[in-house]
């Protein structure tokens, strides 16, 4: 696999360009033909890959990414989408810069407790609802993706999948709390920028005569379907189990491999993955069974958003494989020895590739450098600053594009379904470039320059 040609990444780039361009120029057509385009780009990767490495290897590669990456990804997303869609908030809190900052702060903190996906799914509708009186709303959802869907997940392994991988490789559970000062620093910067942008848009809305319905004295907020929090806890537990179980002795066979169903070649659907999926699907099923339909109607719950993400991401996961393979080969040869390099390279790659394997590549690379001190992991000692840089790069920079982290596209899709015109793929990247890149540059100067 060492001589994998770089042109095999073209289908991945093609798919990203399709996601970016077709909704702008042929929206209707794209809506109808999305699955066909995804299949087309996937085939454009699979066919030459098969020609180069044989059908068995190609089948194994695709099956591996579907079973071990995509399956758990989409089941988790599906579960949280279902359960969060069964919790609704009714009330007359008016979306204003102040209220939005409070909501974004709550969401960001919650991300480290229930994960970026869980927090995003839980908070996205209340944020949309409170701001439903406003005309200019897309920037709110963009900052929501920045903070709630990405940055907030940096404090615990539950927050974001890369950190869970780190945890399963021996990084202590609460080690990520070392990122807290950076998160607070970034929250202050990003929320301050948000405040001024939102205030300007809020003023424009008011000046056009828009106003919230606040006729009744006092704010009444009612949360319905709150029992679903139990199911969210179930899903969070399933995610933790998926990180913990593979290291347990009873989950391994005599040769130390994780137990599972052997599918093809070296592809194994592991028991921990099965347990995770079953728990999540049971939680989703129970959530539907125990929640009234009216709640889903009020939440404008549809299958459209999850369907869109499921279709696009299966293509992204498949076509992304050559890029990940090249990364695995080239990553250790890049000669990255300083935190600043780790932060930017891990981050830049995590912006468009799956951040979990990216994180693992650079964690493994650092572990192989034979450092004598640092955080002890199964991959070797990882110096504190290097781990900090890899973790921050992987988690923070997932916000740089819609495909950087799982919930990003979900938030976009849900917003699109509720009358909010979200930026296009490149439009969003431009937002990230304008707002986040300067923030990350400041982070570099303050935290990663040494």
């Amino acid at each position, binding site marked *: 696999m060492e001589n994998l040609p770089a042109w095999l990444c073209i289908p991945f780039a093609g798919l990203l360009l399709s996601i970016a361009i077709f909704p702008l120029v042929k*929206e*209707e057509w794209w809506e109808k033909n999305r699955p066909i385009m995804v299949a087309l780009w996937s085939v454009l990767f699979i066919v030459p890959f098969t020609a180069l490495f044989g059908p068995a290897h190609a089948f194994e590669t695709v099956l591996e990414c579907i079973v071990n990456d995509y399956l758990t990804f989409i089941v988790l997303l599906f579960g949280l989408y279902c359960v969060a869609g069964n919790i*609704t908030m*009714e009330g*007359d*809190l*008016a979306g*204003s810069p*102040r*209220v939005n900052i*409070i909501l974004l702060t709550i969401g960001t903190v919650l991300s480290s407790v229930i994960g970026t996906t869980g927090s995003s799914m839980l908070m996205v*509708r209340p944020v*949309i*609802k*409170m*701001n*439903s*009186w*406003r*005309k200019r*709303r897309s920037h709110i959802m963009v900052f929501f993706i920045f903070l709630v869907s990405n940055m907030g997940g940096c404090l615990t392994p539950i927050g974001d999948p890369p950190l869970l991988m780190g945890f399963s490789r021996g990084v202590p559970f609460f080690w990520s709390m070392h990122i807290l000062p950076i998160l607070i620093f970034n929250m202050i910067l990003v929320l301050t920028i948000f405040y001024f942008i939102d205030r300007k848009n809020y*003023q*424009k809305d*008011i*000046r*056009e*005569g*828009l*106003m*919230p319905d*606040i*006729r009744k*004295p*006092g*704010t009444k907020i009612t949360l319905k379907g709150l029992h679903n929090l139990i199911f969210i806890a179930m899903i969070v537990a399933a995610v933790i189990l998926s990180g913990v179980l593979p290291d347990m002795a009873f989950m391994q066979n005599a040769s130390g491999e994780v137990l599972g169903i052997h599918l093809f070649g070296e592809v194994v659907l592991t028991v921990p993955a099965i347990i995770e999926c079953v728990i999540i699907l049971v939680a989703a099923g129970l959530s539907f069974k125990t929640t009234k339909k009216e709640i889903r*109607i*009020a*939440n*404008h719950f*549809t299958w*459209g958003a999850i369907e869109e993400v499921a279709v696009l991401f299966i293509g992204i996961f498949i076509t992304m494989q050559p890029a990940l393979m090249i990364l695995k080969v080239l990553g250790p040869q890049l000669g990255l020895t300083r935190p600043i390099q780790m932060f930017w390279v891990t981050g830049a790659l995590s912006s468009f590739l799956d951040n979990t394997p990216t994180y693992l590549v650079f964690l493994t690379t650092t572990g192989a450098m034979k450092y004598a001190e640092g955080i002890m992991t199964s991959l070797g000692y990882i110096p504190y600053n290097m781990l900090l840089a890899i973790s921050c790069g992987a988690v923070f920079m997932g916000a740089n594009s819609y495909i950087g982290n799982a919930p990003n596209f979900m938030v976009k899709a849900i917003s*699109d*379904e*509720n*009358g*909010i*015109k979200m930026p296009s793929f490149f439009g969003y990247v431009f937002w990230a470039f304008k707002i986040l890149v300067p923030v990350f540059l400041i982070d570099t100067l303050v935290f990663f320059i040494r």
Partner: protein
Amino acid sequence: MKQYTHEELQKLAAKIYYLDEQVYMLLGSSLGRVFNIGRVNAIEDMVEKMEAGEGYVLRSELALISNMARTIQNDQARKQLMREYEQILNEVMELPDSQIHADILDKQRAELLSKASFTHRFGEHDHFIICIERAYGCGGTGIGFEVADKLHINYYDDEIFDEVLKRLDAEKDYIHDHGGFSYDRDALNKAEYIYADPDEVAFAQDQKKGLFQRLKDFNRYHGLSKRDAVFFNQSELLQNLALEEDFVIMGHCASAILTNHNIPHISIYLTAPFDLRVERVMHGNKKINLKQARKLVKKQDDTYGKYYEFFTGLDWKDAVNYDLALNTAAYGFQGTVDRIVDTLRRYQN
């Protein structure tokens, strides 16, 4: 390519608005819709875009409506609405790049010109509403009251603010409000010349408060600042009032609010030279010296000016924002009243 008339574009815009309304109603969602700025404004906005050749903006808004329409559970209703959507989309696609005819007048200018004459402003069912803004200390309050009296219509000022506070279940403290300027409740001559710390104006930033009081206010004002909550409520009260009666309203950004909601009215701005206003303030309140009076007049003007700018985006002191701008010092109290009444009577239904 067919050129559409203004009326045809209005009809098309109305169809789009209706489609959005239908979709939102059928969904039963509480998360908002595409056009949330009110029917008249939304239609006007769309027509403007179509006339300016920005049909592509409209197409993306239509796409948002269709996104929502596709999620309607009821098959029959969904199909029906999607058919309507397709028809509308075809019409929008037919729009030429620009609807601007070579000989059409600058719309804004045309609007301004029509504002210069009150003749066609009020329809048969419209109420006669006079919005007065005035610089602090120019005698505007008394003039406004007198104008209302002569026209035999109601005069509103503090009442609006008091009603809003009642709605919000907020205590009045000791400060009242006069069209955006504060006054001390116990002042003998509160109607005209007052002396209160402008920081305590209802519309000024909230004062420092403890956590409990902050939480209480957060709940009371729906998460908004007191200033914003008061503004939104008074906007709504004004709109309701405009449906019921003729009146004169002092301050409160009334003209901008009514303009935003397409409610016909006449806007008047009263001012006077700074030194004369300072003199009047001193004359009315013997407790303050010249320096204090100058500071007060400047601060009150600045506070209200900022407030006005925040909510309207307009310069409060700019005469072009009004139908009539008068220097009260040039005509005196009665002269100003007579001049305004003479002008208005000609157009009062």
